[in-house]
């Protein structure tokens, strides 16, 4: 899923200063799962904003809407009947959803209420962690299911740096060293010899470095 974090309240309030009619948008997909921008978080943020602005003597009107998906035209279209009743859209969807709503309704400004952070998993209740960077050229076969691009702070392809100690990354003691995990995996599978294979320089053109990416399935186009 795409993981996000709500922005600090002060930053959100500052962005909303010029506006008094706000459409607060949530999303039922990833940001609901990671508890950043689902219907529940929309309701909480709406209350916080109403209270704050009422105290300031600048009350706001907020409509709370949580779309099934903000990255799909079908659902974005459902905002059409009422979006023009508002001064601004404050979106708790991921960066994709925020942009996509803005693209459809060009007369509206769509403000981000979250920072979109990574593609990750739920490691445990309330803990999400990054697993993939979408580099477009997967090497998980070579590293037995642990991504060096994402999980090594230096994206090293040929083994751990000199700062790996006690299984922990030097950059953050709460982060496991990706190469310790890979080596452990090689050992578990009786494949430690594979470590000796030199991974050649990576083709980053399939990653963000090649420019914004697009996937087209001609057979599915209408």
């Amino acid at each position: 899923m795409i993981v996000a974090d709500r922005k600090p309240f002060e930053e959100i309030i500052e962005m909303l200063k010029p506006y008094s009619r706000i459409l607060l948008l949530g999303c039922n997909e990833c940001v609901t799962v990671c508890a950043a921008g689902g219907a529940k978080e929309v309701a909480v943020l709406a209350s916080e904003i109403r209270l704050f602005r009422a105290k300031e003597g600048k009350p706001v009107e907020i409509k709370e809407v949580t779309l099934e998906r903000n990255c799909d035209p079908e659902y974005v279209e459902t905002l059409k009947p009422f979006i023009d009743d508002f001064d601004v859209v404050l979106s708790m969807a991921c960066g994709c959803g925020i942009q996509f709503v803005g693209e459809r309704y060009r007369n509206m400004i769509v403000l981000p209420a979250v920072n979109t952070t990574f593609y990750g998993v739920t490691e445990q209740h309330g803990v999400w962690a990054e697993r993939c960077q979408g580099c477009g050229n997967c090497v998980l076969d070579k590293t037995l299911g642990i991504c060096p691009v994402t999980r090594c702070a230096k994206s090293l392809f040929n083994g751990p740096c000199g700062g790996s100690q006690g299984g922990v990354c030097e950059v953050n003691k709460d982060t496991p060293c990706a190469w310790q995990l890979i080596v452990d995996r090689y050992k578990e599978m009786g494949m430690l010899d594979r470590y000796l294979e030199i991974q050649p320089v990576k083709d980053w053109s399939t990653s963000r470095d090649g420019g914004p990416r697009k996937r087209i399935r001609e057979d599915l186009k209408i």
Partner: protein
Amino acid sequence: MSTASNLERVLKSGNFAVTSECGPPRGADPEAVKKKGGFLSGYVDAVNVTDNQTSVVRMSSFSASLILKTMGFDPVMQMVCRDRNRIAIQSDILGAAAWGINNILCLSGDHQKFGDHPTAKNVFDIDSIQLIQCVRKMVDEGRFLSGEEIKGRPSLFIGCAENPFADPFEIRAMRLAKKAKAGAQFVQTQCVFNVEKFGKWMEMVRDLGVHEKVYILAGITPMKSVGMAKYMKNSVPGMDVPDDLIKRMQDAPKEKQAEEGIRICLETIEKVRSIKGVSGIHIMAIEWEQMVPEIVKSAGLYPRPQP
């Protein structure tokens, strides 16, 4: 094929090599480089020039290398993958070779989190092993990573680093084997304090036959004080300072701690020299370059072999 490297000459002639290092200043004053270099003159076979070490902005490794070259040194230009993509890396290699830099040390580089610009974007387009392969290709095949031909190929003696004390320990010798396979000709290790563990690593290195493929220079760092010893033990990732050494430093009276540090350093040199497969030492006297001559002399490694 030999290069014009003095370090390569010393190692190939079978002499026990001595290198040291010079961290460039945080400013544009060439005198700062010359001052540090002045301490080392005549006592080392080559001098490493660090590349924005610990991710703190300093005068470029290439520029400081050039200043040291004019002083008669054979610089080992360190190059990290943190700040440059493959385009900048190859360009800087051509530039350095054009100015007669004979040695390059290929490193991944410390993470920028530890430096003075922790909000910077890092590069890591290629890693240290791929960097070794890249230089090898440029030198041996006269081709860029892209495969295109280089007009006027560089000549460089290629080195790498390895930390025998980092984890996972069981692949640390294999990692050097990988670097040798990629084309590294010499390695300078992380500071050796735990000689026993270093010995174990060397055994694994010998089992893989890697000591016959790369010249191994053991990293040596004299400790100035018990504070420095503790700092290295507790705060520098991948550093292994055994408790008995900390105790020796602690037991020495404050004004004698530096002396004790030098004594430990000389004992370490003596011990690593006797390990089969060790071809030299790399003295990293951090902000204590003035001690290098005494260390080299006391270790019986002076004078250095002249061409």
